[in-house]
């Protein structure tokens, strides 16, 4: 930053684009295009989970349906969906604050966004991951779930192939509507659930880190009508994190 004639300007007003850009507008457009491309890579990465989901749902439709009903609580998922939607709204307000040059508006809205993200992660860890871990509702070979009210469930079988046979007998012996019995491929459902939501959770956490960085920048008056590129890109990223959840929630919890 040169300070000779701009010392009375706020940092965002004195912003100078990178030397290889012709002007700040080109730089902003370039940064946004880069962000959209990055979001495309994210969508394609998550599409791997959605493909795996589709394949196994097609292979084991009934098992999938029951597992979704039993292992996941839609109310928790819905609460998390609500806070993420709210956070997407507040981050837009923060960007509006930058356009209007209101530092307080940026900071307060980013703070609410952070609170929503923290709420999401705390619910995820405290009300989903931790109980699941304790109950053994874990992916693949770590699956130790004993089930409710089934005498067969007392036999905790670690070998997945043998367990598959036993739980199939169990499923036949009980009315699934009243007494849930684990089915042969629950662990595949939980595998998809765990790695998809954990990857998404990691994205939420990274989002919190970059929003914290944006808050520092906003505090230092580095965002204003003339320059708020990184804030806008963080907003785009945050919307993507939100949208991925909007797809994960119904697929895993509802249908």
């Amino acid at each position, binding site marked *: 930053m040169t300070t000779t004639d701009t010392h009375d300007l706020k940092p965002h007003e004195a912003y100078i684009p990178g030397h*290889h850009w012709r002007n700040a507008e080109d730089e902003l457009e*370039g940064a946004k295009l880069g962000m959209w*491309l990055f979001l495309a890579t994210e969508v394609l990465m998550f599409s791997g989970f959605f*493909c795996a989901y589709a394949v196994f749902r097609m292979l084991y439709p009934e098992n999938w349906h029951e597992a979704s009903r039993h292992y996941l609580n839609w109310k928790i998922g819905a609460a998390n969906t609500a806070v993420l939607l709210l956070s997407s709204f507040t981050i837009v307000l923060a960007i509006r604050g930058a356009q209007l040059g209101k530092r307080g508006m940026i900071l307060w809205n980013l703070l609410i966004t952070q609170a929503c993200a923290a709420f999401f992660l705390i619910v995820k860890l405290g009300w989903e991951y931790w109980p699941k871990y304790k109950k053994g509702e874990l992916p693949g070979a770590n699956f130790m779930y004993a089930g409710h009210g089934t005498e067969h469930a007392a036999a905790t079988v670690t070998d997945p192939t043998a367990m598959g046979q036993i739980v199939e007998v169990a499923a036949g012996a009980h009315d699934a509507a009243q007494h849930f019995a684990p089915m042969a491929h629950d662990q595949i459902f939980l595998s998809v659930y765990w790695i998809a939501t954990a990857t998404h959770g990691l994205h939420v956490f990274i989002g919190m880190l970059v929003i914290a960085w944006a808050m520092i920048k906003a505090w230092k008056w580095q965002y204003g009508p003339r320059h708020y590129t990184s804030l806008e890109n963080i907003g785009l990223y945050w919307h993507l994190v939100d949208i991925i959840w909007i797809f994960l929630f119904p697929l895993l919890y509802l249908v």
Partner: protein
Amino acid sequence: MGGHHDVSYLAPKGTPLQTLLAWMFTVDHKKIGVMYLVATTFAFALGGLAALLLRAELMYPEIGQVLPEYKAGATTITANNLYNRAFSLHGVIMVFLFIIPAIPAALGNIFLPIMLGAKDVAFPKLNLLSWYIYVFGGIIAVYALIAGGVETGWTFYTPYSTTTNWGAVTAMVLAAFILGFSSILTGLNFIVTTHKLRVPGMGWFDMPLFVWAIYATAIIQVLATPVLAITLIMLMCERMFHIGIFDPSMGGDPVLFQHFFWFYSHPAVYIMILPGMGIISEIITVHCRKRIFGYRAIAFSSIAIAAISFLVWGHHLFTSETPAANVVFSALTFLVAIPTAIKVFNWVSTMYKSSIVWNTPMLYAASFLFNFTIGGLTGPPLATLATDVHLHDTYFVVAHFHYVMMGGTVFAFVGGLHHWWPKFTGRMLNDNIGRIAAVIVFLGFNMTFFTQFFLGTQGMPRRYATYVDDFHHLHMISTIGSWLIGLGFLIHLLVFIQSLLGGEKAPKNPYGGLTFEWEADSPPIEHNFPHEPVMTHGPYDFDTVVPPHWDPKDYPLPDPSKIKPAH
């Protein structure tokens, strides 16, 4: 920034330590490109040595003639096991550490911004970051090799890759995962650079064809690599937590891995070949001094190849997917032949009735046309379901792949290196010795791999350390060919070293090119041009424009009345 604007980008900055630090933390695309060049050349040497070792072992059908018997712990590991690790090493290193980054990240990094008249790529810091990610991934790959290597092949097929306890599969998969990030960031950077940093007045159809090729490559890098990332994450989770997604004993699906893997890795072969095609377009038009034939056809065929590349992954699964899918993927695969043939015909048409200068780059371009045509024409037998059943997993596939990847991409890369060497080093190369080496590499390459078509049709399976005596002679010829390739590259290396140490100083435009890089100094200054360059002519107007820095006396233009429009 001070007064460094007119100094060569290679000029030292103070003490040797300061210069080193200036390189380590540079955001200059040319320096980053040179650092990529050094790193990928090292990877090429490592992968090449592994290949020479494989060929040496295959000279004799008895096991263990070359690779020693090897004991580790309680288990006796035979030479077979070492052989598996050597071909996996060759594959992983050549694919992930050499051929994917070699052209885009090294030559593309140096020349894409200059060809657009820009000072740098769109995101210079990201560019440096992608180099460090590449090096980090490379270090993990080397660690995996030291920790016992892998014997899964570069394809990491499940269930073997998820159940084997041998070596460091998880570390190697992690390395490939990390290297993918480097590739994505480079691609992203180049797409934005091409969109946003073209000099004013340069439309899409005024761009050099190398830029078109790198742009098409970048699209594939950005859109395909994330799928590899997620596949490898699942593979690592499978190994560490036994999540069962690819494990049939838990109801998982190992064929799903093949679909995921090839959804990336088939487009990835176009990441490997498209930049090479871009180089060939540049070399042929400059060294034939003729307007490129069918500019738009070549440009669009790059984009067409990028688009089709996403639709054909299933042809790697002809023996594991459903027959209906096979028919669809077979048909789609034939589509690839169209844009690639368009390119070859356009290059040959450019050469027709031109004044060809048979220097090292041009020899490599001509070799490319020869090799790539053979490699291309051996594709349809593999895309045809009936013949593929016979040729599947034989040396025919190995030969086909190497004809397009080595005979194509590596030849284009070495040709491009010679073509642009004077520009980015400021030194000329010894062309006579270069030409001798080019001929040796060409002969050695065809000796090595043409024999493998015969081996394949006769039923020699790939990835086998031993074979029946009938195949001995062909394997012998193939191995001798591999020594010729090694010799040729060794000569090239010596020529490069000689040029750096005492080569003749390069003029600004030694070959008479018309694209922007030939207007810059050799080597270019830090910000490439003293002033933003101006578009005064198209990139291939050889019939109407005297090349920059050339005397019109040395470049008699044809009579304008005799020029027919090229397109």
